Structures are given as structure tokens and as C-alpha cells.
């Protein structure tokens, strides 16, 4: 556990009951640290466990094992109001997370009062300040969620999260439901907020382009485990796990018509039936006999702080990965 971190996730596992008395391990021994004032991106496909990690941090899921520390203090299952306040979440669909019958001002004032954040006289000024923070005019305070566009609604959801002055903001696919021309504005807003409010953010997305634009550090998840973690450019310029390389190659590109992506075979298996050894081995173009037998630990690869869970993390990619 590093002391400069605002949040530490230590060996957290989350499991759910599955058919025939078995258990589904949605998150399997995950450790993460979020440095203050930085953005940690978590990428993965559906079923990778990225959202379950977020839900265990916010307290919506209780880990089967492991611990989560906020500012070095362990969080237990029953969280105080101030702990809940300290960790806020922004979702993919802002419409589902905003009360359609209340004006933006009513939503924000209620939060300011419940948490005793400002005096009544200062409420209006704080509401206006929040609108400025998220790039909306003060007049937006009089609107109800239904009157706003998708991008504006996401700004309101962010303002609501910021209202309680959280230490950690968790954003789960916050731009995925927005039109392309609007995604850029929300991404820019996250950039600004990190700079101005030195916010600490966990940014969860399946979209690698978005994660690369925003993150300082990146963790890649597959079937409940972190398979690679490192500084942004370590992950994107020097990926050490074949899964990370496949993900990067699969992103549709504007000007790469001639390059055929290496096609990953098959689909991720069910977390109930985790393959033996490395869970990625049945789909891995690099897999050898050892991969079916031994589960690789998340170990140092290349430069400092770059970790990968692959037996071949320190060897160059093979030609097999290009077919």
C-alpha cells in the first residue's frame, strides 16, 4: 500500500452464487492504487469485472475477501454518511441517475443540506459555482433533466457528484451513450476538473481511445483479473500481455484500411468455468503448454511500475499474433 494514494484496493475478490452450487468469481484477487489527483483507467470487455470493482469501492457490493482503504483507513461493510460522500459515482446513463421531477437546483440544494456543506445563504452561490465547474449556464439550475440533451445531462450528473466534494470520483462508461461530437466535450470536462480541482478519478470504459486520452495509469482486466497495469504509455506503446495487444489491434481505426487486425479466436469463457492456468490461454495466439497449467502472477515487466500477468511478458510478440 502506497501512502500517496487516496484509495487502495487490496486483494479484493467478489463472488456470486451460480447454478449447481458453484460460485461465479466476478473479481478475483484484484489490487489497485489510485494516486491523489490522477486518473486511473480500467479497461475491459463485458464480463471482465471492471464494473464490479467499481461497485465494491462504492460499497454497492461487499467483497468476499480483501480490503479497501480510503486515505489509509479500511472501509467496512457499513459505511458512514461521510464515507459515502467521499466516493461518488457517475454512470453511463445520466437520465437513469437523475430524478426527473426535480430541478437541477432542487437536486443540488438537497445534497448541500443533507451533508451540511454550506450555509443556507451560500447555497445559491455554490449551485452557480457547480454549474460553472461543469460548463453550464446558471439558467440550467431551473431546468429538469428531461429538458437537457445527453451531454448536458451528463454534466448535471457530474455536478451532482461534485456537489458533495468527493475525494474519489468513479466514472463508469460516462461517454459511451453520447453522440461522437459530444463525447469530446465531456472528456475535456474531465481533463479540466482534474487540473482545476485536482480530482482523483477512476475511469471505467471499454473504449480504449477514451481511456488513453484521459488516464495517467491504466489497468486491463480479463475475466475478473488484472492482466496488465502500468503508466498510460507503457500500456499503449509497449503492451506486454497478448490480450492487451489484441484489444488494441481490434479498435477500428480511421486511416488503417490496409492493416488487418489480429483476430482473437472465440469469445471469453464464462467466469463460472474459468479455464485452468491463465484464463486467457484458450484464446491466446501466444499460448504454450505451461499456460494451461500455471496461472501467471501479475509481475514486473519492462520499466518500473509496469506489470503483466503473462509467462512471456518479457518476450517480444510473435508472428502468430498477426494472423
Amino acid at each position: 500500500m502506497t501512502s500517496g494514494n487516496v484509495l487502495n484496493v487490496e486483494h479484493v475478490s467478489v463472488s456470486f452464487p451460480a447454478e449447481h452450487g458453484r460460485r461465479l468469481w466476478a473479481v478475483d484477487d484484484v489490487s489497485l492504487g489510485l494516486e491523489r489527483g490522477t486518473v486511473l483507467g480500467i479497461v475491459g470487455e463485458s464480463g471482465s469485472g471492471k464494473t464490479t470493482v467499481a461497485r465494491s469501492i462504492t460499497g454497492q457490493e461487499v467483497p468476499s475477501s480483501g480490503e479497501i482503504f480510503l486515505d489509509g483507513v479500511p472501509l467496512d461493510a457499513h459505511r458512514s454518511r461521510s464515507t459515502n460522500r467521499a466516493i461518488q459515482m457517475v454512470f453511463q446513463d445520466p437520465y437513469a441517475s437523475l430524478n426527473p421531477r426535480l430541478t437541477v437546483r432542487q437536486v443540488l440544494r438537497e445534497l448541500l443540506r443533507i451533508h451540511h456543506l454550506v450555509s443556507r445563504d451560500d447555497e445559491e452561490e455554490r449551485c452557480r459555482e457547480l454549474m460553472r465547474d461543469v460548463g453550464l449556464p446558471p439558467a440550467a439550475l431551473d431546468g429538469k433533466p428531461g429538458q437537457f440533451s445527453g451531454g448536458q445531462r451528463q454534466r448535471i450528473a457530474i455536478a451532482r457528484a461534485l456537489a458533495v466534494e468527493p475525494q474519489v470520483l468513479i466514472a463508469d462508461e460516462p461517454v459511451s451513450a453520447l453522440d461522437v461530437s459530444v463525447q469530446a466535450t465531456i472528456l475535456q470536462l474531465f481533463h479540466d476538473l482534474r487540473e482545476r480541482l485536482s480530482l482523483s478519478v477512476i475511469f471505467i470504459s471499454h473504449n480504449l481511445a477514451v481511456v488513453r486520452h484521459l488516464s495517467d495509469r491504466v489497468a486491463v482486466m480479463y475475466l475478473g483479473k488484472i492482466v496488465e497495469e502500468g503508466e498510460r504509455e507503457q500500456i499503449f506503446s509497449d503492451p506486454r500481455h497478448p490480450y492487451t495487444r489484441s484489444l488494441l489491434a481490434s479498435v477500428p481505426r480511421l486511416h488503417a484500411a490496409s492493416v488487418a487486425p489480429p483476430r482473437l479466436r472465440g469469445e471469453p469463457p464464462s467466469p463460472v468455468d474459468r479455464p485452468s492456468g491463465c484464463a486467457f490461454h484458450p484464446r491466446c495466439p501466444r499460448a504454450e503448454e505451461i499456460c494451461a497449467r500455471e496461472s501467471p502472477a501479475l509481475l514486473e515487466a519492462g520499466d518500473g511500475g509496469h506489470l503483466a500477468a503473462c509467462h512471456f511478458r518479457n518476450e517480444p510478440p510473435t508472428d502468430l499474433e498477426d494472423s
Partner: protein
Amino acid sequence: MSVVSAAVSALAVEDLSVELPRDGTTIRPVNGVSFTVERGRSLAIVGESGSGKSVTLRAILGLLPKGGRITSGHVAVEGRTLKESRRNLGRGRDAHLSIVFQDPLAALNPVLTVGAQIAEAPRFVLGLTRRAARDRALELLRLVGIPDPVRRYDAYPHELSGGLRQRVMIAVALSSEPKVLLCDEPTTSLDVTIQAQVLALLSDLRRDEGLALVFVTHDLGVAAEVAEDLAVMYAGRLVETGPVSEVLSSPKHPYTFGLLESAIDVDTPDRIPLAIPGSLPDLSQLPKGCAFHPRCFLATPECTTTDVELRSVGEGRASACLHADQLTIGTRRS
């Protein structure tokens, strides 16, 4: 891509306009849209939500929502004009056109096995025997890359993963042996590695079976991978058309330019994406003149009064902008 030579094109759409009732008024989500797709080629129609790209596909199939009607235009498949009344689904449907939707779970029948759904058209549209239809369905399951087709034949849609379901949807679409496959965001709900597999499958089908593809998407990267030709749609109109690589490297319409500038590219992390100012117009209150002018950095007073049609801006290229010649490669606003 051109408006003429409808006789030889796999699909020719000419001057298609659609009206839909909304909130007591009438909107026109598709307005004078024309394009052609040749055999074995693919056209991507890109646009944001509300641009009219999906309604265009539905109008081609005659699947408009209640109260919607086609007010002008015609559609021809392999030179044969489709009558609107024949373009409904059901046993008498036009076998030469098929569609793949974004959400296969909503489009597939939940109480029929996937095999039965794939065998339906071979049996009732193509007139095969029960046994031959089953064999054809198994062949299609193999063609779309479903492992263990004999076992999957008896599976229900909910028993399959999202990627497999979309493959089944494609098999159903191919089961009537269409000449033209319409795809409405078929990979949007799929994971990126599965999306790559489905895009590769569609490209193979185009090349090997000579299918003509029309691919509707909001993702320029997907369009670049899957299509040879690109049509950019805004507020019910095509505003730019041309070969996909040329349009994406030197756009001739400010909206296309703006879409490219706002794109978040995985390979250029330090380039800050620029959003297009403003938002999509309400179709019931479209701006006069060019519908894009309130958001356009090239707009002049002329743009607020002149209704601009697509016109040629070079070999195979067309743009509906009065100032197309002012857009040059590499220029960024601000």
C-alpha cells in the same frame, strides 16, 4: 457512387423522402436521399442519433413506424423497382433485401430455436423441403462462424452470447439469399474483439458471396474498416459522399470535418478532440437554408437562405456545401 445506372446496381435509392408524425406536426427524417451500391461493394452511412440514417434503412425495407410514409422516391434491387406494398416482412417479402439490427435479442424470436428461425426462409420463401431447409440452416450457421452448429441449431436466442446472437441474426438475414444486406449498427453493442470478428465476417461475405452491403453506423472507425464508400448524413440529408479513404482524409463538408475533429483517436492521445459547437437541430424546426449553418464555422449569409443539394466536388466526390473548396487538409478550427 452515382445516382444513374440504376439498371445494374445491386441497390439504387433515388430521391427518397419520408415523413413521420411527431407531437402533432410532421417531420421529415429522410429528405431527398439518393445512393447506389454495386454488387460486392459496401456503403457506410454515418451520422449521429437523429440524422435519419436508420429511418433510411427502414424506408428501403418498408418498415416505417406507424403513421410514417414515403412521400417520394423509389428503390430498385438489381434494377427491379420495389413496390412499397411488397416490401413488408412475412412470407411474401422481397427475398433480395435483408436487414441486421443492432440488438439481435429484440429482433430474434425468443420462443423459436435459432435453427428454426434460420430455416424459415429457405423453407417458405425459397420453397425447399423441410430436410433441405435444415441442411441449409446448418450450412449458414457454419458460414457465419458458429462453433458446433448441430448443437446450436436447437438453442434458443437467450442461451447464446451477444456475439453469437449477432452471428445468428446475420445467418437469418442471409437465409433468404439476399442480394443486398442492410446493417443497422450491427456491432455497436458488441465488445471490441467480437466487433472485429463480426466486421471481418461481413467483409468476407461481401467478397465471397458478392453481397452488396449498406452499413449504418455512428462510428467513423467502423465505417473506415467495413466500407469502400461513405455517405455522411445530417438532419435527414446526405451532406457528403465519396470513397471512404478520401472523405476521411480530405473532407469536403464542414460537418464531416467536425466529426473527424471530434473523433477520439486511440493512436493520437495528445491531440485534443474538438467538439462541434451547438447540437443537432430539432427536425420539426429545421434552420432555413443549409441545416448545418448555425453550427458551421464557414457559414455565410448565403448559407442561411440557399437550399444546397449534393453536387460534384471532384472524381466520385460530392458535397452539399457552398464553401466546400475552402476546406483544406490539416486545417483545424481555432
